[in-house]
């Protein structure tokens, strides 16, 4: 058992078995996600939880770090939007260049 799962098990008692398992599953699947961003977020969360267990973070400090995950996600969402816009822009420019300037000049 890892320090992370040990700590989660100790925080959530038997009456919160559903939450305990859901959290462990969420972190495990996120750590295997193909997205670097999701994987890093899960790894950070796990590290902070171990730091909380080891007394390197206070409960308030831990909560503040966890809340920041949401801000990082919002910044990542913008990156995904810009990536999509840039692709659409490349397609549009490519069509203009190839079809209008080159293909139509042959017709």
């Amino acid at each position: 058992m890892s320090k992370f799962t040990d700590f989660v098990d100790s925080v959530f008692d038997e009456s919160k078995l559903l939450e305990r398992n859901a959290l462990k599953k969420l972190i495990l699947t996120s750590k295997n996600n193909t997205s670097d961003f999701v994987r890093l977020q899960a790894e950070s969360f796990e590290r902070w939880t171990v730091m909380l267990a080891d007394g390197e973070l206070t409960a308030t400090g831990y909560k503040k770090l966890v809340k920041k995950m949401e801000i990082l996600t919002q910044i990542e969402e913008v990156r995904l939007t810009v990536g999509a816009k840039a692709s659409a822009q490349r397609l549009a420019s490519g069509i203009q260049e190839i079809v209008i300037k080159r293909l139509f000049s042959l017709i």
Partner: protein
Amino acid sequence: MGSLLLLLTLSGCSSIPVSYYDATTYAQLTALKAEATFLVESFDQKPASDNQDEINKVTLSFRKIYEYEKGKGKSNSDTIKQFEKIQNLFNYDVKNYMESGHQSLGRNYFREASVILGKAFDIAIATENLKNKH
């Protein structure tokens, strides 16, 4: 031919505000990332009174870059949105440092806060790299 015309019409649409890659933005973000993360990391070791000059210096750098990005106009709204969030993360770290003092949130709290701030910059830098070049 009809499909081709439709595609051409769509390709001519300019409803999506798009900004282009800017080497100045890239350089400013990478430089500010180094300054800001280095400063926040130091919050675990130093009392706030020893860091005031550095905080003022980095805060000013944030403001200068914000004004530069804002000056590019509406087409740059995505980068501005990201930068505002990064600036808020930094301001929040400074506020916690000034109000709670060093080590009150944990002996390595600000080291982790600095990692988050660095990641936020990395995403903004990656975003700039995604933009098309003129």
